[in-house]
């Protein structure tokens, strides 16, 4: 187990290295002069030179990369180019918001998707097949931001049941916090729900046809026990794999959902940094998004290993 985790971890180092180079290079090709962006158009040549000196912008590219990498490794993500506040503080304040909303979205996706997939797999026939396919594809095809706006209209403006924007931290008021993240999480969770449903259905249909399920049935195991003990368990492994892929997609969709619901999460942070061309903020956020995805992939591999010890090497 430890050896497996270590091997997977070491295998990720070159990928991490490539990611940092990629992020660094993308930011280098941005138009505009960061020093001028900080000081404004009326800056004197002397003050511009001083800022360039301070930021290390007059050093050769590879030296800039190495010093940036060194800072990142020690947890120093730099300061925002717009208001000079530390980037790490902004990230730490946005992190719980995004984790809560995306986590809830995944839970909603699983709560809808898995039972729906089981029902779809156990209701055979062409009609059941067609209905299941249609519902699954509908969930996948619905634009999250449209669903968000429709929900806002119905549940906030019309019925007044749910708050339309803003966020309350879980530590301040758990119930209000839940209410504020419910609509964003549903809007984000529909796509994973559809994907989980299709996945559970297709893998269960395969399993239910297998010999060992027939044997379990033949020895008199009750129908629901067969489904739960044999059918669902086998579909757990592909479910875990797709979970990590869907988490990456969720992190991306957070950008739109944060904007609609005014959530102070990662999405708003990166969107604002793009609008204001806040280089250091953007650089750090893109890096963190990628690291989060890599970390989730590693976690997936470990869970995978626990669920199916046959996978020693991949």
């Amino acid at each position: 187990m430890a050896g497996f985790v270590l091997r997977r971890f070491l295998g990720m180092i070159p990928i991490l290295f490539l990611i940092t180079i990629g992020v660094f290079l993308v930011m280098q090709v941005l138009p505009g002069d960061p020093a001028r962006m900080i000081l404004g158009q009326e800056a004197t040549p002397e003050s511009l030179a001083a800022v360039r000196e301070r930021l290390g912008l007059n050093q050769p590219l590879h030296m800039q990369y190495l010093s940036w990498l060194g800072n990142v490794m020690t947890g120093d993500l730099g300061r925002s180019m717009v208001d000079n506040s530390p980037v790490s503080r902004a990230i730490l304040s946005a992190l719980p918001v995004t984790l809560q909303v995306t986590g809830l979205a995944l839970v909603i996706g699983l709560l809808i998707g898995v039972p729906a997939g089981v029902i779809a797999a156990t209701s055979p026939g062409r009609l059941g097949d067609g209905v299941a396919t249609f519902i699954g594809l509908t969930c996948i095809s619905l634009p999250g931001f449209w669903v968000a706006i429709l929900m806002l209209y119905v549940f906030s403006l019309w019925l007044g049941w749910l708050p339309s924007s803003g966020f309350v931290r879980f530590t301040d008021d758990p119930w209000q916090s839940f209410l504020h993240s419910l609509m964003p999480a549903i809007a984000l969770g529909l796509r994973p729900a559809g994907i989980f449903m299709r996945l559970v259905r297709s893998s269960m249909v395969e399993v239910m046809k297998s010999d060992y399920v027939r044997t379990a049935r033949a020895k008199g195991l009750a129908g629901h026990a067969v489904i739960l003990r044999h059918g669902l368990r086998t579909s757990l492994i592909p479910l875990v794999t797709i979970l990590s892929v869907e988490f990456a997609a969720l992190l991306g969709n957070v950008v739109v959902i944060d904007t609609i619901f005014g959530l102070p999460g990662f999405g708003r942070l990166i969107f604002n940094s793009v609008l204001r061309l806040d280089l250091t903020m953007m650089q750090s956020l893109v890096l963190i998004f990628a690291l989060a995805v890599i970390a989730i992939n590693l976690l997936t591999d470990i869970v995978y290993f626990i669920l199916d010890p046959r996978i020693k090497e991949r």
Partner: protein
Amino acid sequence: MNRVLRRMLRRPLGALGLLIVTALVVVAVFAPQIAPHDPTRPDFTAILAGPSDVYWLGTDELGRDILSRLIWGARASLQAGLIAVLLAAGIGVPIGLVSGYFRGPLDEYVVMRLTDAMMAFPVIVLALAMTAVLGPSLYTAMIAIGIVYSPIFIRLARAQTLSIRETEYVEAARALGNRHLGIMLKHVLPNIASPLVIQMSVSMATAILVESALSFLGLGVQPPTPSWGSMLRIGTNYMNDAPMISFWPGLAIFIAVLGINLMGDALRDVLDPRN
């Protein structure tokens, strides 16, 4: 081709998908002929008007006809999806094909690790960063989505090529002294085409979603050009007075994406040799 089409039409959902996609293409191509009004011409006597004989779906905040804007918006969405996916496949398939055909350290340590790294970035986040570099426009959005999707095609083309290159007919072609390029184009590519076509339809559906999300954020199609995403964004400002403004473009995105997904699903059923 004809056979594939006929088998897709025999499935109700496949037929529905084909119908939606065909309608979408017709609307996008013949937008100037179909649209009842000029999509960018304001009518200050009918601002935020409800449905009427003149404006079937009402008008927006500048008095522009919503139906005409929806019809023209189909162009932007379809164009974005199509070009993004063609770009992704155009980059990905040759790289994946060559990489999988020759294998070796370049394949394993460079191409595979690069795709790993690229796939770690959420699509919208990378597209946002590229928008900051290239400036917001429909072309930026298309290029960004195309580049972000290319690793999927590299992976798929490579995986398929790996299995085809071991087959006897490829071996035979090699024994006959055919050149590598000829074998790749004549023997490998046609045999890996089906999964690539399926992936293209799946990717096109999500590309349209991503493009409309970027336009919704104001980073895709720029005004006054009509697009579904930007119409939806403007509609959110008028949710109290005219909620339908943001309803229609969202419905259009949904139907278009659903149609492409239904078509892709039926295509998978028909083309997959296991069925």
